[in-house]
């Protein structure tokens, strides 16, 4: 067992030993198989990687290190502007309810964000202790300490104002939609959320590695949000399938679109339709939706791209029992969208990395993937913007693989929004400074506008959208 893994996962990391040889006895042929591990192994590989503070004292040691900065850099680096020094101070005074309120008032998904945020480039990255070459305050961990209790014990932190007789339809129960709905409902607006899936949470529930945020937590978080009252989620309701924008416009005082982004970007190379070529979003979705044993994974898996989704796909492929996982990225570490912390997750899970390699062609036999051919790239001299574009060297490398997972970005729902006469830019919705689309009364925010950013950005977009809707409502009322 790899010792590094034990740092994060007390029981170590389970790979398919006897079980896989049992399934493929004496066989050298590669195969995409499900059910590679035992139940215990799956549970172990997909348990929450975030170690909680075991005790109050342990949390206080860290909380008491906080300097309580004024106009704090951590807060300024949080897209939702959580007053971090304030909530940490509240932890030190045993005012955990106050701490949870401070967090959740600014970010209703503060619990989930404390698990999935790339804090090393946000709050913790800005902590002034970094300037002293000291470890930053473990802000995310302290945030979990407070919010997990709030969610688990269902603290009624928020009270809804009496109904003002207004109705808003929100499309998408992801971070943007839930955040928007919560702000609106607190102000007495009745909100109905239309969600295409059977669970709320959006990408938090369907698009992030299960070991970062467990399915149970996602469900609890959504329930915590809706426990405010005034928010109804209607599941299996998809815009363009069994729901039209016109219906919503007719039935509600305003509509908020938080529809997110769709499938993974096409690579545009030969062989992309071979069996064994997977969309990372679909792969991650299946893990969350179907359960770990049901999701097949190859023996030798290549993951294309190096964003958060690529890391989540690669690590989970490994944790599902893939023997070899190789991440292929066309630039270098300096340009990667993933953070160092994320990259280390993949490295600790034993994933291989090939830098400066761009997929050229996927080869197959009998319709199934057998090889991935990549162009070997090099970085050009920086252009005027300082960006170094990868260019082909003419050399290629060939990887023997039986599965290719595409994680080179996601594409917006261009067809859907265009069909609804919504102004967009390659599918990304255009909104004005009041979060309103070209259609009056239809607002939007989150990934469907920004093309795909962090959960915390979507939460802020939802807040902004709700405030814009409230402002417009009050303006109308005053007319």
């Amino acid at each position: 067992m790899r010792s590094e893994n034990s740092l994060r996962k007390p029981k170590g990391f389970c790979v398919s030993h006897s079980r896989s040889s049992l399934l493929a006895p004496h066989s050298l042929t590669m195969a995409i198989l499900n059910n590679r591990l035992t139940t215990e192994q799956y549970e172990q590989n997909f348990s929450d990687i975030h170690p909680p503070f075991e005790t109050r004292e342990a949390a206080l040691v860290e909380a008491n290190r906080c300097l309580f900065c004024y106009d704090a850099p951590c807060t300024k680096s949080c897209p939702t502007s959580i007053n971090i020094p304030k909530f940490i101070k509240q932890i030190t005074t045993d005012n955990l309810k106050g701490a949870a309120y401070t967090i959740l008032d600014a970010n209703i998904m503060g619990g989930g964000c404390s698990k999935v945020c790339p804090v090393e480039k946000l709050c913790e990255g800005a902590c002034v202790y970094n300037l002293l070459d000291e470890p930053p305050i473990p802000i995310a961990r302290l945030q979990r300490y407070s919010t997990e209790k709030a969610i688990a014990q269902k603290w009624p932190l928020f009270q809804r104002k009496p109904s003002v007789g207004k109705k808003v339809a929100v499309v998408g129960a992801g971070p943007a939609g839930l955040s928007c709905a919560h702000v609106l409902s607190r102000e007495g607006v009745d909100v109905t959320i239309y969600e295409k899936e059977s669970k709320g949470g959006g990408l938090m529930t369907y698009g992030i590695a299960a070991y970062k945020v467990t399915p149970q937590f996602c469900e609890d978080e959504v329930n915590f949000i809706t426990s405010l009252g005034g928010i109804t989620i209607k599941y299996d309701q998809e815009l363009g399938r069994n729901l039209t924008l016109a219906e919503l416009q007719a039935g509600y005082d305003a509509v908020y679109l938080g529809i997110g982004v769709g499938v993974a970007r096409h690579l545009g190379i030969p062989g992309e339709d071979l069996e064994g070529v997977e969309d990372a979003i679909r792969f991650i979705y299946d893990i969350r939706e179907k359960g770990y044993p049901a999701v097949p994974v190859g023996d030798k898996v290549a993951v294309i791209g190096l964003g958060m989704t690529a890391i989540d796909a690669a690590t989970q492929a490994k944790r599902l029992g893939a023997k070899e996982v190789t991440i292929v990225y066309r630039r270098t570490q300096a340009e990667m969208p993933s953070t160092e912390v994320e990259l280390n997750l993949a490295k600790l899970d034993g994933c291989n990395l090939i830098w400066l390699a761009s997929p050229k062609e996927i080869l197959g036999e009998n319709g199934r993937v057998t090889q991935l051919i990549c162009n070997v790239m090099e970085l050009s001299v920086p252009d005027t913007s300082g960006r170094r574009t990868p260019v082909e060297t003419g050399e290629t490398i060939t990887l023997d693989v039986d599965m290719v997972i595409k994680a080179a970005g996601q594409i917006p729902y261009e067809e859907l929004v265009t069909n609804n006469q919504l102004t967009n830019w390659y599918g990304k919705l255009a909104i004005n400074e009041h979060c309103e689309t070209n259609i009056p009364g239809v607002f939007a925010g989150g990934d469907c506008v920004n093309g795909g950013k962090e959960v915390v950005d979507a939460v802020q977009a939802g807040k902004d959208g709700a405030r814009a809707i409230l402002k417009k409502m009050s303006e109308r009322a005053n007319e």
Partner: protein
Amino acid sequence: MKERIAGATNSGISNLHSFTHSLFHSLNMADLSTNFLGIKSPNPYWLASAPPTDKKYNVLRAFEAGWGGVVWKTLGSQVKNVSSRYSAVDYNGTKVMGLNNIELISDRPLDINLREIAECVREFPDRAMVVSLMADNTREKWHELIAQVEDTGAHGLELNFGCPHGMTERGMGAAVGQDPEIAKMVVEWVMEKATIPVITKLTPNVHSVVPTGRASVEGGTNALSLINTIQSVTGVDLNTLVPNPYVAGKSVYGGYCGPAVKPIALKMLTTIAQDPVTSRVPISGIGGISTWKDAAEFMLLGATSVQVCTAVMKHGFRIIDDLCDGLNNWMDEKGFKTVYDFIGKSVPTITHWEDLDINYHIVANINQDKCIHCGLCYIACEDTSHQAINLTYGKPYNTYSIIENECVGCNLCKLVCPVDDCITMVEQRKGDEYLNWKEFQRRGLPLNDH
């Protein structure tokens, strides 16, 4: 090194200790030994009269660890202690910034105490053995107790006129120390009988320690020690709503000690060190001494020996190593060969406010290379009074700079800054000459205009 010695010897812990101590001394130049009215100790550190000094088992281990002396826990009239006895004040995660106790004097039988004192003196003749006393309020009782204690071979007596709880209800402890006339009378009784040096321990639970200090000196005491604990309520339990320490649903005022009381003790010590009557006798300093730095400060303000209790109750006798070592290194750095080279050296520097030089002016300077942009200086100055720090917005890091015209040189920004030497106070005199408040007024110089 230590292990090798321990493996090679079976000559007992105390011998081992003196050997390792001599190793320490070979590295250091300075001489830490003190002679307090003829009571000699190898270093100025005595354990104060308190639970760590209430029996032979403790005292021998303290001596083995290297303590210079002890003041044996107060002997006197028969008492019985309760449970619980202590409560504490924690601060930002640091435990026991202040300790409060409601324990009375020794509740062990007198004859056992006396026998054990004698044994300790015999085993460690080079260490100071002072015995704290609090007899019932008659001349005979005091005489009787003194005679018994002197028979043990103890080197000195300390009169407990300071215990602020319990004993006061019987007219003892602080009840004596709070009334200069009674204190003087008791000291006179003691001096009629005592043949070894007598130290009178003062209570801080008075508006000034000087009147009782003077009365004690006039009554003949050979020395003074201060402070005893300060009457306190450390806090109220927010679940039970009963203050701490909790004794069957009730509490009682206790005596406060530990690091929190040090500044108060230093002030009281200084008043004794500066008074023309009380400064005639040596002083043993007490009150929150936890480190060699604290000890050096007490000695600079007039203490010849220092007494430690709370720090030992929290960490054990082992802290003596750094108490000695740190003091020794500091003395070497400063060129002090013996403790007498610096005892009392800072006393004259504490003066009257109206003698302070108004022309002395300092302004803060922020070293931008060291600044970590926490903004603590800014908000302290902004919300305190002076608004002398400028904030230039940045994301995520603001820049802070001093508005020198507005800076009054108060030190607050420097005090709250978490980075050493990031903020320094730079001298910018208002005038070359010394100018005090009286002269300032006489000349009719202008006051602040904003």
